[in-house]
């Protein structure tokens, strides 16, 4: 298992008031994403546990794109990965953000 942590400064807090949301399932090629409104509005962290080692730079790119796109200020994101492909990771992150915005 490889553990990765990314911290990003964000320009604005994520919309909505929901305190937490979870999406996805830990299964082969899938992942679960837990989002919690637990940080100052100018910060976002993403912690990942993945069984596939050596893809740190891909995760970094996926997370950076997501943060740039969703501006998830104030959100602590924790991921249990089951070996998902990057596009699935992006999709789950966006789904999670949308769930928090309601």
């Amino acid at each position, binding site marked *: 298992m490889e553990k990765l942590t990314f911290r990003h400064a964000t320009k604005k807090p994520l919309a909505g008031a929901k305190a937490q949301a979870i999406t996805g399932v830990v299964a082969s090629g899938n992942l679960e994403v837990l989002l919690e409104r637990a940080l100052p509005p100018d910060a976002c962290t993403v912690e990942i546990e993945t069984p*596939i080692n050596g*893809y740190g*730079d*891909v995760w970094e*790119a*996926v997370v950076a794109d997501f943060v740039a796109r969703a501006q998830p200020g104030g959100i602590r994101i924790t991921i249990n990965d089951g*070996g998902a*492909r*990057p*596009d*699935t990771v992006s*999709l789950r992150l*966006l*789904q999670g953000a*949308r769930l928090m915005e309601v």
Partner: protein
Amino acid sequence: MSGWRRERAARDARIEAGRAHAAGKVVAAASVVDLLEAILRPGDRVCLEGDNQKQADCLARGLSQCDPARVHDLHMVQSGIVLPEHLDIFEQGIAKRLDYSYSGPQGARIARMLYGGQIALGAVHTYLELFARYFIDLTPNVALIAGVSADREGNLYTGPNTEDTPTVVEATAFKNGVVVAQVNEIVDRVPRVDIPGDRIDFVVEADKPFYVEPLFTRDPAAMTETQILMAMMAIKGIYAEYGIRRLNHGIGFGTAAIELLLPTYAERLGLKGKIATHWALNPHPTLIPAIESGWVSQVHCFGSEVGMDRYIRERPDVFFTGADGSLRSNRAFCQTAGLYACDLFIGSTLQIDLSGHSSTVTQSRVAGFGGAPNMGSDPHGRRHPSDTWMKAGREALVTGDPALMRGRKLVVQIVETFGEKLVPTFVEKLDALELARKLKLELAPVMVYADDVTHIVTEEGIANLLLCRDADEREQAIRGVAGYTEVGRGRDRAMVERLRARGIVRRPEDLGIEPLDADRSLLAAKSIKDLVHWSGGLYEPPAKFRNW
């Protein structure tokens, strides 16, 4: 002039030798080895019918049991290397040379045997190309074919999986060759005559029905959101845009998703009757909802599909069927139709390089390409216009007199940026080149050449290569849809944004598609059972696809 009839005399001698093991034309399954040893000569060119689906498996077992001292150094000329016996005969010394098209299930073993020098490889052809060579320089001396039934005169009913049989028999029977057919049963009267009896020399009643692989069944239950998203983009960004009515689909999940979105997503876009009406396609079970919803005018088939027979019988307005009611497929004609009469081919691949060359060959698997290179190429012999073809031609036109412009066939690759086990689809260099180097092949096994590809669809977007004006634009357009692969991350972001402004790279949002809407609820059928319901109970799926 006996000097002009040596082949004919040799043929007569073979047949006479074979008659010793037959009653008339009929041969018992137990006598197959004797028959084959009697009619085969060392060095013969042999077509052991291995189609995409139908397999002359009884004859394959018989050939693999022949005595290599009597039958050896055969040159196998057949489209499919599918059964273990197809390669066993090379290990045993019965066969030596090979010219073929497709080897899906045996792709890994064939690679090992090529590396080991057990097979002398001619070429990995496309179907049409191999069929063409049957009539020029690869004419079989002996054809070992398969059908459902025959009468004692040899009149053959192939069943719905006619596939390669007429082509193989045409080339063999009319050029002094010997044709042996295995059938599931010998009957007094066949339901319809697919091959007239005077082209068949021996009929073997097989010990069990020939094997057919359900190659075109894609279980909707396994379809992912990513594949649905790609299908939405293809429908909106390509099918609708170019008004594609005449087309061929590959066998992947991405194209199966398109089939399942026609009666739902595409219907909501108002595209019914405007796209996807005329098909060159195997009878994909996933096309059933579109057929039942009135989307499909007609379908011509390369072969059939396990479980679709009853459904096809009840839909003769859509499918090509015989007087007996069952499907008549024909690989050579359908390949020709796909090449000349379709405006779009869309399929998948394992690797795409920075120019757009693609291949399913990897260093450990030589699967062959089947029909994809025919379908996935721009036929320069085409002379009839269509709006789709002309629009693509205009997009590609760079220089020259517009009055002399010709159209372009749309050749679309629909791929996820990563395959199984996070293997990237986009690569700097195809594995096929390394394979060619190691095996000293003169021609690298490329499936679709870059100059034939017009679009690449991934979950990240669509790259329209027709609109690229130089190699650099082309490379960045490809990188621009290559997602998080190394190729994708190596993009020039500013240039990709400029290409996006010109519509060369289009993201889901550029097409008005919200990726989060790519949901399985859009599928017209979510399971094989749903397909059965759509068919009114006429589709009878193979046991391995059932969960009821």
